[in-house]
């Protein structure tokens, strides 16, 4: 087990958002976490990456308890969170953004091979490397955000709402790239409102609604299930 979340309660002050959540990501898996807007997906990600502390519960990464570890240590341990809305550094160039992605590793390692690998995955970013990140198109910004995440050579890449606001053809490209990243050994937790997209491109899936886990199972089975079809796919 790469990532394990046990009985997690979390929220903002008095407003509890997550209720006893359990979730697992195995090595080299792509796991989908789906649910509608406001289900608590982004809150869960903030807790995993250390931006928020949970009320109760435990987060294990490679057998180690990281529940109260600060974000900078979590990055070093190998979890990278690509946040909703890309969140690039808009005044920095594409390449500066990528270099920032390796912030925690730069002192001990040469990052040029990483940079070359990322440019090979995203040739478009190489063309735009000296352009300000804020001036990129939405799709390019998402590429840059994923690429920045890859720069720290994560074992688990968490991507929040990758498809939001992007044209379907661009989303298809990104999905292919994610599969390529996964085939090289990085596990991915894909957090999506687009249930169809997430479940048809993952091994295992979790469905959350109002902060609680309502279903889980192999993605193919979830896609076939009557509840999912009715509640999320409008069939």
């Amino acid at each position, binding site marked *: 087990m790469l990532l394990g979340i046990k009985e997690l309660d979390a929220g903002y002050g008095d407003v509890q958002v997550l209720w006893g959540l359990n979730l697992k990501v195995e090595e080299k898996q792509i796991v989908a976490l789906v649910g509608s807007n406001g289900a608590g997906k982004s809150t869960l990600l903030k807790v995993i990456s250390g931006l928020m502390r949970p009320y109760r519960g435990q987060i294990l990464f490679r057998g180690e308890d990281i529940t109260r570890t600060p974000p900078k240590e979590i990055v070093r341990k190998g979890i990278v969170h690509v*946040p909703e809305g890309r969140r690039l550094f*808009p005044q920095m160039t594409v390449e500066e953004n990528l270099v*920032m992605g390796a912030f925690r590793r730069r002192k001990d390692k040469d990052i040029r091979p990483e940079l070359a690998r990322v440019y090979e995955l995203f040739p478009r970013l190489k063309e735009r490397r000296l352009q300000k990140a804020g001036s990129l198109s939405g799709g390019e910004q998402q590429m840059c955000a994923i690429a920045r995440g890859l720069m720290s050579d994560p074992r688990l890449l968490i991507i929040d709402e990758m498809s939001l606001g992007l044209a379907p053809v661009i989303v298809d490209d990104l999905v292919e790239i994610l599969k390529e990243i996964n085939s090289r050994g990085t596990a991915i937790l894909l957090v999506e409102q687009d249930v169809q997209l997430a479940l048809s491109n993952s091994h295992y899936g979790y469905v959350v609604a109002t902060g609680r886990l309502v279903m889980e199972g192999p993605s193919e089975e979830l896609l076939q299930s009557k509840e999912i079809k009715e509640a999320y796919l409008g069939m």
Partner: protein
Amino acid sequence: MLAQIVINGILKGGLYALMAMGMSLIWGVMDIINIAHGSFIMLGAFTTYWLFTLLGIDPFVSLIFSISILFVIGYGIQKYLINLIIRASAFITLILAFGIEIFINNAALVAWTADVRKVKVAYGASNFSLGDWVTIPTVRLLAFMLVIVIGTIFFFILNRTDLGRSIRSTAQDLDAAQLVGVDVARTYALTFGLGVGAAGAAGTLWSILFPISPMMGGILTLKSFVVVIIGGLGSMLGPILGGLTLGVAEAMGSTWFGSTYENLISFTILVLVLILRPKGILGGAD
């Protein structure tokens, strides 16, 4: 005549720029309007005064001390005080900065009395002429050149070092900076240290050119504020442009209307900028 006025204005404007650089950095990165900024300038000025008066250290040399001492003070204040409330509303940090200002000013009053003092260096009055019309006081020119040196170092730190990258990333997107592993609390402390260190440098240069006293800070905070607003937040160029603009405008105004109007002129400019270009001359650009 006009050339002389413009040169006087530019020389003073350089000092304004340095004063505002620290304030702009702290404001831009942490959204703190540092009301105590002028008090830190005052502490820098007194550092130089005492090192000169008691130990005979040349004021320009004491720059190293005022920058380092004020850097440490700034780092400590951010780490042990402001960081504790940094997530509260901007109003709370404003009040804290206000409290720090009152504390520093009154501690200085108790320690050093309200006397107005002057750093009297032997070369203070020397000057040289360019052509027949322009006279340049040597200390002012030297101070201006030091502003350029310090500004360049600042620019280098912000754009070419890891610290600079942490500062810029934190300023541009706080969450994203944390997610790539930037230690935000430490970055904040170092940023405040840098900003206050720059105030210390400005204090040293101020003490060489003008009389100093424990209550000198208030008007300097306001001037720094005006310069930041005129230039616009978000780049190093803003304070420089704002400082030079204010320096030249004040020089012209006090020549033509009398020096009592100096402050009236700065704040008229502030109001005009707020009406015409609320984001400053460079606002919105980068």
